[in-house]
């Protein structure tokens, strides 16, 4: 991540705009593995300002994948913090930032539907949004989760 992903201009800009980043070296500070309950690196955890973790990713991510991952993290934390209008706005942004990411684009559509439902209280927005997940990404795990 340090050689390719973090020097990337899009990554620098995205992290600089939306995150306070902290880097913890498990060789110098082995207690970090215990504290964050992980035995593998790289591990990325996104927390709200109360320190509550809303998203975790383990394993290498390239620049596009990291930005996509972080865009979903922002949506999830806004949902968990019950700031639904914010979550919906971030979810729209996430659709753009995950485009072409086979793993994350279907998930972004899934959570966009959830945010739309939470923000409006209209259950049809959830079912309509999940229908889009099923239609656009029928082989994805998120289509199966939406197919209830």
């Amino acid at each position, binding site marked *: 991540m340090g050689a390719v992903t973090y020097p990337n201009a899009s990554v620098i800009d995205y992290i600089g705009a939306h*995150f306070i980043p902290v880097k913890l*070296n498990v060789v110098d500070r082995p207690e970090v593995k215990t504290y964050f309950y992980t035995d593998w690196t790289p591990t990325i955890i996104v927390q709200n300002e109360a320190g509550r973790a809303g998203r975790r990713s383990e394993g290498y991510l390239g620049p596009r994948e990291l930005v996509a991952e972080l865009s979903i993290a922002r949506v999830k934390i806004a949902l968990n913090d019950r700031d639904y209008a914010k979550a919906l706005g971030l979810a729209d942004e996430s659709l753009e930032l995950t485009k072409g990411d086979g793993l994350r684009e279907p998930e972004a559509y899934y959570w966009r539907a959830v945010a739309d439902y939470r923000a409006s209280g209209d259950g049809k927005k959830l079912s309509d949004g999940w229908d889009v997940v099923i239609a656009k990404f029928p082989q994805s795990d998120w289509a199966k989760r939406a197919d209830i």
Partner: protein
Amino acid sequence: MMTGQINWRTTQAEALGESQGTGRLVLVDIYSPT
């Protein structure tokens, strides 16, 4: 805005403290140097 490089903090407490009231989330990167 291009910052040139990521301004990494070195402790979680520092990052959490800075995030207060900013609307920015804390990104924790746990790594081992290669």
